[in-house]
């Protein structure tokens, strides 16, 4: 019963696609459409802290190996975007409208799904840490880019691409709030990364591989001074660039399974 109906739905969905496609008919008289088959790819964020890569989470005290600061994060959110997957034949598949807001608060908000990936074999991934400049100047948007997330500066338009907040006795206020963003000129923190799978990964309607990315919040202070010097960043600028780049450039694809 279930299968019959879903087959039925598929046919109807195809009708829908055909219906829409017929609008373009007179413009591009191409042969009947080949209905492609899609799968999906999952993504997952794995949090570690410091060179020892100990498991990291919110609301737990960590001592930074370089600055010596005691850090208890209460909020850690960042954008990852513009996924592309490299096919075995060397061409790239680009995910349209590819924006994800990761929140360390929960495992669910630390994982995501890339839908409608054409079936095939893939060998590498490209992704962007932050939000491309175009989408910082494109007005009101939906999904991960909603203006209601608190991840958009109202007085100085642009996305807060990474928010790290928490408590620390080493800051003069007892708190830290690092809001990192900036998409133009020397303030640009947006960082495109690629990672080879080191193997061929199959995507089919039934096989959904998971890419695990390891991020290390300690890297924010890799070359930046401790909280006694900078405990608040609330706009684009050199401080944000250094912190963001140190963090972004250390993000690694730790496994694809």
């Amino acid at each position, binding site marked *: 019963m279930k299968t019959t109906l879903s087959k039925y739905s598929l046919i109807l969905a195809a009708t829908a696609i055909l219906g829409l496609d017929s609008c373009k008919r007179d413009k591009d008289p191409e042969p009947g459409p080949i209905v492609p088959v899609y799968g999906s790819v999952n993504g997952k964020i794995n949090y570690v802290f410091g060179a020892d890569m100990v498991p990291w989470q919110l609301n737990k005290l960590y001592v930074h190996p370089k600055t010596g600061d005691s850090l208890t994060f209460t909020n850690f959110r960042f954008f990852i975007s513009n996924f592309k997957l490299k096919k075995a034949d060397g061409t790239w598949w680009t995910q349209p409208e590819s924006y994800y807001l990761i929140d360390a608060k929960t495992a669910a908000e630390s994982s995501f799904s890339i839908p409608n990936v054409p079936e095939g074999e893939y060998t590498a991934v490209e992704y962007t840490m932050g939000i491309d400049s175009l989408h910082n100047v494109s007005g*009101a948007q939906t999904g991960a880019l909603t*203006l209601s997330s608190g991840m958009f500066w*109202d007085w100085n338009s642009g996305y807060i691409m990474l928010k790290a907040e928490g408590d620390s006795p080493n800051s003069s206020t007892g708190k830290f709030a690092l809001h990192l963003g900036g998409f133009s000129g020397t303030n640009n923190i947006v960082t495109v990364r690629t990672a080879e799978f080191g193997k061929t990964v199959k995507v089919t309607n039934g096989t959904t591989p998971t890419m695990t990315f390891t991020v290390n919040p300690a890297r924010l202070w890799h070359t930046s001074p401790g909280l006694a010097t900078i405990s608040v960043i609330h706009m684009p600028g050199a401080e944000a660039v250094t912190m963001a780049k140190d963090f972004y450039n250390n993000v690694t694809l730790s496994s694809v399974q």
Partner: protein
Amino acid sequence: MRRQSYILLLAGLAGISACKPDADFRTPAANYTPERPAHFPPAHYTHDKNKYSQAGFELGRKLFFDPILSANNTISCGSCHKQEHAFADVNIRLSKGIDGKTGIRHTPAIFNMAWNTSFMWDGGVNQIEVMPLTPLTNKVEMAETISNIVYKLNRHKEYPTLFKNVFHRDSIDDQQMFWALAQYMSNLVSASSKYDDVYTGKTTYTKDQQDGYNLFKQNCSACHTEPLLTDYSFKNNGLDYQFTDSGRYRITRREEDWGAFKVPTLRNIAVTSPYMHDGRFTTLEQVLHHYADSVKQTPSLSPLLVKNGKPGLHLTADEQRKIILFLRTLTDTKFLTKAGLTE
């Protein structure tokens, strides 16, 4: 299960029916484009994604004047931006928001916003759609959260239908709210002052107005550029030796932007007193006196306001008087009293 298939079937039909040209029953019949005067340059905001419609404009207008957008349902956009003052605030130097709290700047006029390349006195906001984010969430303006506004709108007895008529989505999200406000503001167009009639050859100035216009072109229009009466640049026009509001510097952190503010349009200037970002001047006479003799020399002062090696434009009393006579031709009474702009 069966219901699911029906939905898909409907989707298929909708797909097909969307192809029928012109017969789209969902779009309202009235004009499809906001007002765009022939003697203006092309607008900066083009409605690429946020398609303009009369119903969208009306929805934006309803939102603009609805205090539901504020935390305690007391303040609307229209509380500060009033049509009879070209959507500026009157007789208040600094804006007054929720619970009578005072803001840091004077409420500017809102019209011809579709031509703006940036928003706010310091240009910190880059797009008309995201502009309302500041007043809506600012603690001294409307102090509301975007998610709560969306929640209130979805539970309202009229809004769900109104939004659906414009955007055809299942429920209201924040993008639709920002889009509706943008459609409204995009169609607040002021282009029918005496100045415009002269500009388009329909009438002529009096002798004094004409002298004033000539003086204006020599002294002012490098920044207050025609026909929008601003070039949207940021300039320090010499108000202070020391800046309590750093202006554009707050956004760019560049030394040359200290105390620089967005050049405001001078259209409708006679009805938008008080003047400047902090509303320090109440009359145009005071403004002209400033430009004539009180311009303060600081490193970031615009060189356009230095004449013969000395700061200021050194205008005589008669020249100042004539420039003011010209400025008064910029009042667009039709716009200030036009029906259908205020709810």
